[in-house]
């Protein structure tokens, strides 16, 4: 169960790396100097490709391939955009990078920009991370002053600007085209795809969009080489991944692990300190709230993309929410349905109306006002929404609820019959 800290370099250093001196002392900016001064852009791109690094925002699409989709002969400028709109319930891994290791993100985004011949990048930080955005602002000022951002970076002649852009409170802006809309000063509503951002993204220009964690993983890959990264993890899930774990565990927090080497059980019981005394494991939303819920029978699933998929869920963003047997699955489902109803942007009909309807049905169940047919109707509703929307939000809303009904049907039946009393929450104040 090896724990590594390649994106959480501050953990290895034992303290936050919020000054340039601290970051450089921890090996920071070696990779950028190496890339800009010694490597043609194509070689840097090759390293990304070869590393097999998969997008850490949730979809898990190989980062190098995504970058290769940008047309080389576009007359328009290209952009690299960092998705720091981390809003997936249960996920807080990017927050830690922004707050304690901002330079690694700055180094990573400039590396990515260099590889795709881009000179203007944006880091979109969710509005609720004002504190983290300020840390990033400060890091950016230092990096600019030291010549790691701006014209002639590290004396290489390469120029790249980084702009920090603040969101204003909308989960949907984590969806890449909604993020672009928001960054363009609009309502954050997803765009029809195609065209994909790689071809027509920000301001209609070729755009590479990557998650904070993905970009922060680039400096060590360039520094130590893709082969080093490949040496960790499984064939299809190489490298490390930060998991955020929360809910009914004793030591909630972020843990960076080598993919495939650690099981869910180890994450929950060893790293996160297990459950409260006398409580049984009930359920886990393993890859953020938009992934299917799993029961105790899946505790021995290794944490990598393929194994989790095989177990019936998805690694997603790595936001792992654990619920013990004090919790009510119907209440939990309602809370998530509420979230997605609140966050639906309203652009496409099935999501706008469907998330609204789903919440209402679940509310009736929890209130004891539902009939047994409502369960069937809810399930048929999933089929009327799923796969028919403009963006994945509604599918994300359905996944945890549909799986909950499949897995814990008896609980739903019981709640429909009797309603659900509010359970005692876990009030133990347990720090990170």
């Amino acid at each position, binding site marked *: 169960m090896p724990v590594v800290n390649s994106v959480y370099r501050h953990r290895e250093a034992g303290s936050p790396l919020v000054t340039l001196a601290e970051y450089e002392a921890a090996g920071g900016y070696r990779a950028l100097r190496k890339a800009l001064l010694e490597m043609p852009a194509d070689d840097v791109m090759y390293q990304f490709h070869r590393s097999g690094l998969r997008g850490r925002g949730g979809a898990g699409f190989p980062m190098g391939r995504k970058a290769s989709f940008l047309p080389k002969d576009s007359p328009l400028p290209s952009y690299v955009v960092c998705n720091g709109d981390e809003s997936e319930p249960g996920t807080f891994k990017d927050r830690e990078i922004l707050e304690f290791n901002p330079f690694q993100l700055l180094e990573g985004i400039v590396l990515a920009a260099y590889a795709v011949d881009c000179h203007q990048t944006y880091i979109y930080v969710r509005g609720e991370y004002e504190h983290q955005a300020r840390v990033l602002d400060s890091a950016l000022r230092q990096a600019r002053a030291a010549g790691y951002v701006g014209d002639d970076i590290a004396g290489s002649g390469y120029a790249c600007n980084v702009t920090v852009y603040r969101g204003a409170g909308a989960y949907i802006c984590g969806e890449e085209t909604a993020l672009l809309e928001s960054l363009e000063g609009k309502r954050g509503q997803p765009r029809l795809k195609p065209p994909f951002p790689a071809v027509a993204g920000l301001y209609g220009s070729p755009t590479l969009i990557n998650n904070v964690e993905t970009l922060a993983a680039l400096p060590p890959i360039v520094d130590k080489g893709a082969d080093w990264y490949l040496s960790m993890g499984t064939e299809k899930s190489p490298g490390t991944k930060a998991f955020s774990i929360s809910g009914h565990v004793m030591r909630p927090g972020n843990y960076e692990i080598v993919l495939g080497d650690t099981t869910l059980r180890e994450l929950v019981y060893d790293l996160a300190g297990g459950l409260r005394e006398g409580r049984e494991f009930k359920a886990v939303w393993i890859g953020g709230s938009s992934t299917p819920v799993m029961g105790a029978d899946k505790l021995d699933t290794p944490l990598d993309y393929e194994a989790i998929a095989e177990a019936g869920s998805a690694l997603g963003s790595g936001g792992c929410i654990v619920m013990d047997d004090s919790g009510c699955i119907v209440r939990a489902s309602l809370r998530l349905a509420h979230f997605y109803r609140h966050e639906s942007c*309203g652009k496409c009909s*099935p999501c706008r109306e*469907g998330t609204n309807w789903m919440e209402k049905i679940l509310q009736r169940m929890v209130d004891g006002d539902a009939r047994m047919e409502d369960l069937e*109707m809810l399930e048929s509703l999933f*089929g009327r929404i799923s796969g028919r929307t*403009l963006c994945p939000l509604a599918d994300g809303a359905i996944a945890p609820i549909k799986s909950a009904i499949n897995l814990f049907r008896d609980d739903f039946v019981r709640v429909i019959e009797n309603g659900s009393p509010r359970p005692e929450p876990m009030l133990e104040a347990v720090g990170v």
Partner: protein
Amino acid sequence: MSDAPAPKPPPTDLVRFTLNGRHVYAKPGSMLVDAAAEVGVEIPVFCYEPRLGGPIGACRMCLVEVEGMRGLQTACSTPVAPEMVVHTDNAAAKDAQDGVLELLLANHPLDCPVCDKGGECPLQNHTMKFGPGRTRFVEPKRHFPKPLNLSTVVALDRERCITCFRCVRFSQDVAEDGQLTFQERGAGTEVATFTGEPYEGRFTGNIIDLCPVGALTSIPYRFVSRPWDIKNTPSICGTCPAGCNVDITQRDGEIKRVTGRAEPNYAVEEGWICDRGRWGYPAAWSAGRITNALVRGEDGLLHEVPLEEAVDRAAFILQRSAATGVLVGTDATVEDGHLSAKLAEALAGGRVGRLGIPDRPHLTALRNLPRAELGEIDQADVVAVVGGDLGNQHPIVELRLRKLLRRRGTLLVAGVRPQMIAPRATESVRTAPGRLVDALDAVERVLESGSRPILIWDEADLANDDAAAARLAATAEAAGARVIELSAHVNAHGLRALGLPTGNILDDIEAKRVATLLAVHADPTEFAGSTEWDAALDQLNDIIVVATHRSHITERADVVLPALMKQEIEGVLVSMTGRAQRLRPGSDGPEGAAAAWEILIGLSHRVGKPFPWRTPAQTFASVAAGYPAFAGLTYQAIGTEGAPIGDADVIPVDDTDPPRPLGEGLPLVLTTEIFGDATSWRSDALASLRQQAGLRLSPGEARRQTVTDGDVVVVASPHGSCALTVSVDERLPDGAAFVMTGPPGAGTHALLGADFGPVNVRIGA
């Protein structure tokens, strides 16, 4: 080369694909929804509307299955590809259609029985064809207070809204007025304006036509009819010379509504119309409408008589008269103009003329350049607008120009008025009155820079600026630009093509060569030169008027023959781009009135020189046979889409002296605002939007003239004077007096001479 028609393009130019098991063909690049429609397969849509821009994929109504593609695809955004296999009616597609409708109906109040859209509602129609048999939604529906008046003409019922984006996209992306938006998000999304202010603009009514449900409705049409009680007739707006195609809705012979064409005419208005055109129709029953014939009695007063009697009386006068002038007004149809000319020919000492701007030689040079249709602006890369105020006077043109700018074309706007599109234009040059010539270097540069340039020029402004007109014609020709004329009057192009001269009748009255006037849709006292005309009318023995509304001249007439309005008649108008288009009766009109063509034919019979034509179609056939510009055209050829006429054989006025401003003081710039014309003042529906006559001055000019906002002043030119209220407008330049014409009777026309020549005015107490 043989003259045989080109063979039908071989199917290889098209893409073959399979639709519901049938091999069909489509134009490469067309979206599935359009490709299917071409071969008669309906894929239901709500948000898809190419006139608003690219597909947005919001409503999800058009989901279809494409074999080999994961999940269902939106047919609005999926282009056809060779050998694609598409299902729009298999179980998956049907379930998607049914499913989207069930979700849309979940929060839709099923108040169809009291909804104006009922019966012509895409949501209702799609539900019948593709939709759920029942709804399973038992929760309370989304509730908003019932309709909100977005303005005095548009009502918004938010409960019915299905958030299809059409109206907000129109406001943001077509009219670009920026006023209508979505507020909030998710299930709480609602259409709204800034803090609930009214949605006021010049094109707002188009959102009613666009709305696929009953969320946006016309207040004047509210609860007026049900679709099964009405009849829609394709016609022409005819309020301005642009020639927008419209549909007229009638019930029991009465006009109830005007909408954009359901089948847009892409050469002209693209289905959009302005609010004046949409809500001008109640002018038909305004207080001044003449519903019965009038004859002046021995008591000196006008008395209602049956139409027959009035026509007899008129014929008697005409027969008695030794010298009759027939004056054709700007609203007359081509048939009216032709019949007027023929009647003048038939009468002793008869002569015919029209109201309008004299055909100065340099205007003819501009008119002889190759013309463009409005729709061809969509293919232009640069457009220069010289003079005029098209946003007010030819509003629909502005939408094309906004579109040009959205697709990154170049637009130069030059002239003396603060044009509404100017802030958006690539370049804008403000000139002093009569000094359009100062903008021509820029115009030349811009036109030369394009590969498909279009010049849009204003008749009224260029008529007064010979130097500019001459150079502009040469510039446009050298640049290979095609031209669009912004005519000053509705059917000016058509009446000019009939060879009807301007100015002659007034001269003839003044020279006592005419003693009787027959005015056909013409009130020269509400026209440039009204002072001179006023005096001229005094010299006449008899005045016969064919008119729709009471006005200054009807009060002075001996016989008033009540005419039907444009929406009540058959006839041809030629738009400013030279497109002959057909008016069709969308309403019966007052029982006591008749179409001008019918009155004129009747008069020909009564004066013993009967015309051989009995219908407008026959009359038009005679026009086509008699005038080269109309050669080959028939009613059938014009159809519902219109057809361009040929070049007219116009003999320019014999006037080679450049027009020189008369009088002293400030140069006068006369402007008619969109809601400041007679139609707006006659239509109740536009009551709250009407724009008054007035004098507008720049702040600097107001100081120089020692006047301020709200002062009532007398504006005097060598031709006449009128009292106007001052308003100070920061958008205006110093050194000019901007006069807004305002309602009939405002007297602003007195400031101009009958030749429309430039004048200076003095401002006094």
